[in-house]
């Protein structure tokens, strides 16, 4: 099987470690992985902002460049949902097929990763933030609104395989964090309120780590928490899985000198 890893633009630029976590996890699951370098964006930010032509042309670029792969894995539910649930609809069948072979990382791993190599315990309380696009667009899990047959949430399934981990319960298990791309800056006031409410819910469950399939949500929540000097840690699901699969040293070894502004 020819497998490609697509590392979305914001992971590439702001949290490269997630890319390596995904890469190493896929390899440890026995996959041969390629990382094509010239596709940078799935089209999502443009699609959400109403710039349909730009979105479609980037989506098209993605689907034609990844054509030669049997599966494409992306550590972001949001990107996959844009490709699969939106942009594919306007494509030729061959290109749309590529979108259908594009998977969110946890979705791919939970289904194919038979040998659980999650050996290092993480004895921490972890809050799983459900990304709206993974949940309600990709249907990875059952949204609390619906009464559809229960679908397992692959992110939760994987988390629960980590030894020692304690997944906390939330009062509102799948409420939006308020990131929403441009929404986070255009509707700043409401976005911040939504984010603070999510943080509070996780704090009520005494979460020490917040994790999610989508780092975009977490960057928003982390930005809010750090400004308020809350000590909770934010790790993408891939990072958390890598820490359990390869040991906590893996995280430190892949920390790319992240001098933030602070």
């Amino acid at each position, binding site marked *: 099987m020819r497998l490609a890893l697509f590392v979305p633009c914001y992971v590439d630029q702001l949290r490269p470690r997630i890319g390596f976590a995904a890469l190493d996890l896929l390899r440890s699951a026995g996959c041969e992985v390629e990382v094509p370098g010239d596709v940078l964006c799935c089209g999502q930010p443009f699609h959400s902002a*109403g710039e349909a032509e730009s979105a479609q042309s980037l989506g098209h670029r993605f689907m034609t460049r990844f054509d030669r792969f049997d599966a494409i894995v992306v550590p972001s539910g949001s990107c996959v949902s844009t490709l699969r649930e939106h942009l594919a609809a306007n494509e030729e069948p061959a290109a749309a097929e590529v979108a259908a072979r594009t998977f969110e990382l946890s979705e791919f791993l939970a289904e194919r990763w038979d040998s659980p190599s999650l050996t290092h315990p993480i004895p921490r309380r972890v809050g799983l933030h459900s990304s709206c696009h993974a949940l309600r667009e990709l249907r990875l899990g059952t949204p609390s609104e619906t009464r559809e047959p229960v679908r397992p949430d692959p992110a939760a399934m994987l988390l629960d395989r980590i030894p020692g981990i304690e997944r906390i319960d939330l009062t509102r298990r799948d409420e939006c964090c308020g990131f929403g791309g441009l929404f986070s800056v255009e509707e700043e006031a409401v976005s911040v309120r939504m984010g603070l409410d999510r943080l509070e819910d996780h704090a009520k469950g005494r979460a020490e780590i917040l994790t999610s399939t989508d780092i975009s949500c977490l960057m928003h929540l982390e930005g809010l928490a750090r400004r308020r000097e809350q000590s909770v840690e934010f790790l993408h699901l891939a990072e958390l899985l890598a820490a359990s699969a390869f040991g906590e040293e893996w995280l430190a070894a892949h920390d790319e000198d992240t001098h933030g502004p602070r």
Partner: protein
Amino acid sequence: MGHVDRAREFVRDEARTRWHDESLWFVRAKRDLAADTVPDWEALRSQAAGIKREALTRLPALWREFEDQAHAAGAVVHWARDADEHNRVVAGLLEERDITRVVKSKSMLTEECGLNPFLEDRGIEIIDTDLGERIVQLRNESPSHIIMPAIHLKRGEIGELFHQEMDSPAGLDDPNELTAIARLDLRERFLAAEAGITGINFAVAETGSFVVVTNEGNADLGTALPRLHIACVGLEKIVPKARDLAPFLRLLARSATGQPISTYTSHFRSPRPAESGAGPAPELHIVVVDNGRSRLLAEPGFQEALACIRCGACLNTCPVYRRSGGHSYGTTIPGPIGSVLEPSRDPSAHAELPHACSLCGSCTDVCPVHVPLHHQLLTWRSHLARQGHHPRRRRWALGLAAVLFAKPALYRGVTRIGRGIARRLPTALLDKFGGAWTRQRELPPIPRRSFREQLADRESATTPRATVERKSR
């Protein structure tokens, strides 16, 4: 002032925002429990959605059937192209009969048409009899929610309002007491009314009858006493058969408030029988209004929004609505469904409403008739951008970004320089450039090398395990 500013204003009052959010979340949670009581909730939704979609494909035939049946039953059907025509028809019916006192039960359509001010300008007193609507009427406000018009107000504020408007004792905030006061005041208005206006939840083509649903019985009292009943209805609110009512009535109350059934589900067909020696015979008039609905029907991307049964579930579940309040939308109908409907009336005035949404998709999943609300909001975004209604700044920034993402070499260069600058700038300066992001949030830490750069370095340093294509084809 748009949604952004009004929402900012609303959110500033943290305690009230929290309370508003929690009140509506309580209703959403009640709705979830109510959905659990139906053996197959999803099948019921699909059934209702199917009936509405089918009905929307043949509205003219259904309404002709309705008119024939209603006419045979002794009612009169009027047609109104727009809000103005609707208001004139209603005013005409009242003026021809020298009627100056009217009571009205809840109807978002008459809000949409601006019926109250229209009649008041003509010297006709019109009293809203739904408690929530009466409260906002006394405050000269519009409803902030389509089912709970005064949900933005606290009990104490209502007590104060009643104290000023109805001379009740000051400082009341007991809901039962307040309701009793309003009831006393309304009772006199019911008795004095010469006409009752109602909305229509469902018109039935087969029978020429219609259903009005309330929790307060005010539609019943308002039409049982006066001799003239005027029912106003949008042309999307028709179902083919009487049996079609069942799925909708089961869905409506559960979706709206989590009740198994609305307290009053009243069926109307013909005028009340004349009472001997009680003056002129009672009359029933039905005003069917288009007001932009047929335009929406012609838009493949939006026509499904006409399936809406105005249950308000999408408002209750919307994380933005709950935290910004109904008035922040500046429209008759707020929340997700309003942001879908209103831009078709006035695209330039409401171009930003589809962006007052984080695209979480919860609205689509609660909608009892499967209106794909958040996808329609997305569709609006691209429609309005294409029509030139988006701010130039946003379009420019995104245009530049699109160029960058299509040219890997340029992307590499620009992002490397960008990260370099961002890593060197002092926090204070960065916060300034971070704009709305950094006002209340930290920027994420900026790494020295991107993923792609690190991968390339790794590859040239050691035996490559991953193939990196650096050439931009």
